[in-house]
């Protein structure tokens, strides 16, 4: 197992290298760069050229890539052109905002989805199952930006009970508990929107997995020997039914750090998704590169975790 993990981690390096080349090429294909995006008409051509030299934008792309990669291997992704800070510092300072948002909505989704999924599976085709199946489909099909907009419209504008966006009230100097409550208030709608769009797929995972287990012979045996239905479902079926769910949960964990680009942007939540999106708009290409490499690492980690977890929970799978 350890050998396999090490092998897989080593295999990630060439993959990341290729991804970084692809990204570097795409990002730098853009005719305008950061200086052009920020330049105002009063700037002289010399000033612009000087600025480009400072940021290293005057050299050919392959040379820029090699310079970038040399530093990146040592963990230095350059300075964000907009924040004037190392990219890693910028990402570090925003990633926890994203994580708290994602983790809370993730936990809430599971909390809602697991009981609904179990009941749906045990009472397949009942009115309960049918109602929630339909709701599940709505959840899966909701466009994230539509949910965000509607919830702002209803709760922040029409009812005016919750803030429109941001993480704290502008100019607020509250500390301690007051500050915490302020953040919670700002968190409510983004968490609500994220939960709404992901809870559906979790209900489906749980329901499908439970249905598969309930059909098996050992469940029939358990019923035949006269166990109570509650014991059959919650002791015998649930343990096996949750195995795939545990692996899904495991492989979702890296993604919790990735930030939700659209939801964070609409709610102006200072998370990594919003920062990454703004970096793309601002042509802040060092930050875009750092952001995308970070995303790619998270994806690769998720894939690795899922393979390992499958082997952990299912002894029939042998990793080599």
């Amino acid at each position: 197992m350890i050998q396999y993990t090490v092998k897989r981690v080593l295999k990630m390096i060439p993959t990341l290298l290729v991804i970084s080349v692809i990204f570097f090429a795409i990002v730098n294909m853009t005719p305008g760069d950061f200086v052009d995006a920020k330049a105002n008409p009063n700037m002289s051509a010399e000033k612009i050229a000087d600025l480009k030299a400072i940021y290293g934008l005057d050299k050919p792309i392959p040379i820029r890539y090699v310079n970038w990669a040399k530093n990146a291997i040592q963990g230095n992704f350059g300075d964000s052109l907009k924040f004037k800070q190392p990219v890693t510092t910028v990402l570090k300072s925003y990633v926890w905002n994203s994580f708290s948002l994602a983790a809370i909505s993730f936990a809430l989704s599971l909390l809602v989805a697991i009981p609904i999924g179990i009941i749906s599976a045990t009472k397949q085709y009942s009115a309960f199952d049918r109602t929630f199946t339909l709701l599940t489909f709505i959840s899966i099909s909701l466009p994230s930006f539509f949910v965000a907009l509607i919830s702002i419209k209803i709760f922040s504008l029409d009812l005016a009970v919750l803030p429109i966006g941001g993480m704290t009230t502008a100019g607020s100097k509250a500390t301690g508990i007051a500050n915490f409550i302020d953040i919670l208030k700002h968190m409510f709608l983004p968490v609500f929107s994220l939960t709404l769009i992901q809870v559906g797929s979790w209900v489906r995972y749980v329901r499908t997995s439970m249905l598969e287990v309930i059909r098996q012979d050992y469940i029939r045996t358990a019923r035949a020997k006269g166990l109570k239905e509650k014991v059959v479902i919650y002791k015998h079926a649930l343990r096996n039914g949750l195995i795939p769910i545990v692996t899904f949960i495991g492989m979702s964990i890296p993604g919790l750090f990735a930030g939700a680009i659209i939801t964070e942007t609409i709610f102006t939540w200072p998370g990594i998704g919003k920062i990454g999106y703004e970096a793309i708009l601002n042509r802040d290409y060092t930050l875009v590169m750092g952001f995308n490499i970070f995303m790619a690492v998270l994806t690769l980690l998720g894939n690795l975790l899922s393979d390992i977890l499958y082997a952990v929970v299912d002894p029939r799978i042998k990793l080599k």
Partner: protein
Amino acid sequence: MMENAINKKSKAGNSKDKDQIIETPGQIVIKRLLKNRFAMLGFGLLIAIILFSFVGPLFVKYGYNTQSSNVKMPPSAINILGTDYLGRDMLARLMYGGRISILVGVVSVVIEIIIGTLIGAAAGYYGGKVDNILMAITDIFLALPFLPVILVLGSLMSDLKVGSEMRIFALMFILGILSWPSIARLVRAEILSLREQEFMQATEALGLKDIRKIVKHLIPNVVPTIIVNATLGVASAILTESALSYLGMGVTEPIPSWGNMMTVANKLADFQKRQWLWIPPGICILVTVMAVNLIGDGLRDALDPKMKR
């Protein structure tokens, strides 16, 4: 066809066999689908949406870019869904927007399926080095962060001043090229087991060429998997397109798509006071994606040989 003929013959010959009508796999699938209320709801909704978007414009006297001086009018008898900031009829734009959204979704999935099936089939059939190389490429594409890549490409297109129509084609290709890896993996996994089966030994004995073996004998066996994933893929492609267009990185003005029609929600006045501008397209996206998801799910159940009801 042949099985039908046999059925009829046996029915005529022996009335005792009446109950034992042998159905073709296709008939079983259709029967299961017809029984599935959710799938039928999906079909109904989808047909309605398709009629609305593709036939609807024939009954509306405005084009998608017909401007007038009646700017930002609320819904009325003349403009059933009101008008936007250029005085364009929202109902007409909603219909034409549907065409674009559905077309982008379908075409990008067709591209995705073609690439994914070919690569997956080649990897699974040839194995060895070919498999290793193709799967390495697949893994790279799988690790590309989907939304950031598309956003970067979208902003690249804006910088290159790509025209509105070209953008639609580019978008279809980008969505297709970024989504094929999951299909390739599924197809490969199935082909790996299929190629060990007896009918493949038969094709070997017949001395068929590789291409023929793959296209005529292996891929048809993977079609159910492809159909289900293609359907669900259309739903997610429509969602992605709408999100991109909403952010101004997908389909751009003056061509409407349900996503880019919702960008007006970024202006507070329109957002708060003129809901007719952005709520209808949102509902259209939701209904279409849900219809496609319902159908895809129904197809998965209907095509699953293990499912019995």
